[in-house]
């Protein structure tokens, strides 16, 4: 309820500014038309631009100041109220911040009580702990407080309320004034020779630039959000254990072994199996499609293969868990009842399960990238080879592939980066046991799986067991980014050769 009251006047203020903005648009446009005595040809810009300019001047500075105000005011109030709380009021084992949140709660409680009619506005300002039991008074209007309200806290809360009210009034007045001043300036400037369009277009260009720089902002956000928490993590947990240890066993009572190596091994092992499936199939498919297939086969086969890339990863995850995993268990497990009669595999989740399914997912990725690259090899090189009497396959093996090799390596690296960052297939198909083993039929776990498991459910952002996820995320980000940069570099460098 208190929250609602804090928001409502602000929303109202925004609505007022928006109404003023609309008003400004029509007033300025009419004024421009009047200045040109109704003949738009006499104006520098089209009439609408005068309107846009006035609207811009009315809304932008006002809303900008409003945003800053909303950000700064709580901090200023907090600082001045904190100075009211004597050091003695901060009891043992508590902190100023805890007292401050008490103050805020009491202040909001008083507001709620006033709204509910349990208190008059004057009474809320003047009551003191000496003659009223604040806690039970607030409880009557539905505000539950954890402890008795001390005189200092009540005093601070009353101060908090009065400052907030003053701030609200000041803000309303200031924003309306800024808005009106903007409107006034724009109206003054609106003459027939005023270059309204240039101003409006400069503003639009600024908006476009802001949109473009959002990409950078996202990257900065990614890096910083993970970096800060990773630093927190390394202050709680030795980095030697994280990078060089050999055990992963998080323990929520503390003292866990959190080493990335077993996870990295699982990730790389699964990625290698995935690439062993995807690269031969994808590469041969690309060679066939670009060198042998006629246009009819191409038109059918290429989009069909690419369907595999459009299927969401959760589908592959389910396929791994419920179809491929049980099939592999039938094949390699169950002892006498199994297909091979061996007992090498017990659970459906394993490195092989996840790797195979991830390989299927990566086939179109490898094939369409390689296809582009093979197509970019100039026809003259093939013709030269044919002219010397080479067969088609010899031409491909000895001329086309060597020429396309850097690009193909780039494509494989991009696929590897995909495999390392893939989450749903390994969450459902790879298992949860961190170990370093060479047996592909055992369950192992990966970096992405552990990020998911450490950050879902009950999380405590002060424990290394949760914060380790950010360090894992950062490692993953750096790893995939590195692979991408190298891959893109190779691909670009190669492309330039034949252009």
């Amino acid at each position, binding site marked *: 309820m208190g929250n609602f009251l804090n928001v409502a006047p602000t929303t109202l203020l925004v609505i007022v500014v928006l109404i003023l903005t609309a008003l400004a648009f029509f007033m300025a446009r009419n004024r421009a038309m009047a200045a040109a005595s109704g003949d738009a040809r006499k104006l520098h810009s089209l009439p609408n631009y005068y309107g846009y300019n006035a609207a811009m001047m009315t809304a932008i500075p006002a809303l900008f100041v409003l945003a800053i105000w909303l950000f700064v005011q709580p901090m200023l109030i907090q600082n001045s109220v904190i100075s009211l709380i004597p050091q003695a009021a901060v009891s043992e084992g508590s902190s100023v911040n805890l007292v401050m949140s008490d103050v805020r709660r009491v202040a909001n409680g008083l507001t709620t009580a006033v709204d509910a009619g349990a208190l008059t506005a004057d009474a809320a300002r003047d009551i003191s702990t000496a003659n009223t039991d604040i806690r039970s008074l607030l409880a009557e209007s539905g505000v539950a407080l954890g402890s008795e309200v001390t005189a200092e806290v009540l005093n601070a809360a009353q101060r908090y309320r009065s400052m907030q009210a003053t701030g609200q009034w000041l803000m309303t007045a200031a924003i309306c004034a800024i808005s009106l001043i903007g409107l006034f300036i724009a109206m003054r400037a609106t003459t027939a020779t005023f270059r309204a369009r240039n101003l409006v*277009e400069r503003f*639009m*260009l600024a*908006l*476009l630039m802001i*949109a*473009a720089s959002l*990409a*950078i902002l*996202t*990257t900065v956000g*990614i890096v910083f*959000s*993970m970096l800060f928490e990773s630093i927190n993590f390394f202050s709680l947990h030795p980095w030697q254990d994280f990078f060089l240890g050999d055990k992963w066993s998080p323990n929520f009572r503390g003292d866990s072994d959190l080493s990335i190596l077993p996870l990295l091994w699982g990730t790389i092992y699964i990625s290698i199996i995935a690439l062993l499936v995807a690269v*031969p*199939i*994808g590469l*041969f*498919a690309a060679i*066939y*499609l670009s*060198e042998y297939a006629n246009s009819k086969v191409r038109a059918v*086969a290429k989009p*069909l*293969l690419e*369907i*595999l890339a*459009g*299927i*969401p990863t*959760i*589908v592959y995850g*389910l*396929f791994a868990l*419920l179809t491929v995993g049980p099939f592999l268990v039938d094949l390699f497990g169950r002892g006498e009842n199994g297909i091979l009669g061996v007992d090498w595999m017990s659970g459906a989740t394993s490195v092989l399960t996840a790797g195979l399914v991830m390989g*299927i997912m990566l*086939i179109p990725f490898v094939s369409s990238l390689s296809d582009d690259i093979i197509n970019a090899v100039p026809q003259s090189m093939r013709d030269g080879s044919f002219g010397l009497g080479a*067969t*088609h*396959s*010899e031409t491909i*093996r000895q001329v086309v592939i060597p020429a396309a090799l850097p690009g193909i390596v780039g494509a494989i690296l991009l696929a590897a980066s*995909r495999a390392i*960052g*893939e*989450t749903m297939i390994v*969450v*459902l198909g790879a298992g949860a046991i961190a170990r370093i083993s060479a047996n592909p039929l055992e369950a192992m776990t990966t970096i*992405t799986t552990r*990020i*998911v498991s450490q*950050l*879902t459910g009950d999380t405590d952002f002060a424990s290394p067991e949760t914060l380790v996820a*950010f360090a894992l*995320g950062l490692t*993953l*980000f750096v790893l*995939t*980014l590195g692979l991408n940069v190298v891959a*893109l570099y190779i691909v670009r460098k190669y492309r330039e050769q034949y252009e």
Partner: protein
Amino acid sequence: MTDMPNHTTPHNSLLKQDARTVKRNRAETRFKAYGIAAISAGMLMLLILLSTIIGRGTGAFQQTFLTLDVQLLEAKLDKNGNRDLEEIKKVSTFGYAPLMAAAMEAKVAQAGIVTDLKPKELEDILSKDAAAKLRDFVLENTDLIGTSVEFRFLTNSRVDGYVKGRVTRESIANDKNINVAQLDLVDALRADGALEKRFNLAFITGADASDARPEAAGMGVSMIGSLFMMLVVLALALPIGVAASIYLEEFAPKNWITDIIEVNISNLAAVPSIVFGILGLAVFINYMHLPNSAPLVGGLVLTLMTLPTIIISTRASLKSVPPSIRDAALGVGASKMQSVFHHVLPLAAPGILTGTIIGLAQALGETAPLLLIGMVGFIASNPPDGIASGLMDPNSAMPAQIYEWAKRADPAFYERAWGGIIILLVFLVTMNAIAVMLRRRFERRW
């Protein structure tokens, strides 16, 4: 010129190939066969995947129902007889159980089935959700109190599994939820025609259900969650993406800042989706204190993820508008900004739209970031009642709901997970088909 060349037999003739040529031709055939094998392997995988999805998922759209005649006794449901909704609401699902038990016994007697099951066991073949469904029905139709209605009850998931062939008499040996005598009853009721498999609309429109009631779980509420997320993505990613592309393609000077932005965008497109989930958790939830599990947060995260895709495709379609269009606009006195917004952008619009739909389809199927912002692990039981609550209240999303079902212990949920995938794929296929149609319809060669 009298010297005749020395005639020797050629090493190879056109009619008879020598050993080496045979070998080379064989290698050629083999190589080609590898290519065909690779393509067929890819197709085979696709075929297996799709047939698995369809084979295992279609069952979820059908459910086993038992039709019973229920006496809605006034004495039980509305003691005062004044049809006051508030008073009828006071009767909990426990008040409906005896009515169902009576209906069950009547049915068994009427069909002439001999069974030594206790009434409690009789009732157990119905879903644990059945009483609540009956109650909802009565609350909506209070005028039917005091009459006898024919009501279609959901059966227990084990009964459903037995009818669908998932559960067999052998497989329930250690199952406490059902016994062989109950299956005999099911067979008898099936022969009678009261118990039958039919289309289950509730799977598409309904809400998720708890672990004990797989037969009542549906995709509807998570579909609404996905819808709200897509609205957020569309509202943010399209304008921002288009604005960024216009700047980079039409206005940006060639300098190092532009280069950094471009490299950045291509790298962002390849960042693993889970990293965006970490960003969302750290920035939107921990720092900005937006609510956990809210479609708004999911939408924001997916927006950041989809932006690079939209920017890349928008730039491609802006690039494909020939410079002559811009030159002509500038020539008749338009400003640079006017030439872009009045001429280039409308011509590029179909391409931008196509790219946006494909980006949305990608975002719709994405799961990993949603796990980190908490869109799993709870039961999304009620559809939101407005736009604000749709954005801010905890909800699930289609792929997150599928993941949730895949993680549950009861195999009855697996069928629903596959069924959920069919629904998800129908959406994706539709979106992609629209994108392809748009491209076909509006594609212009300059």
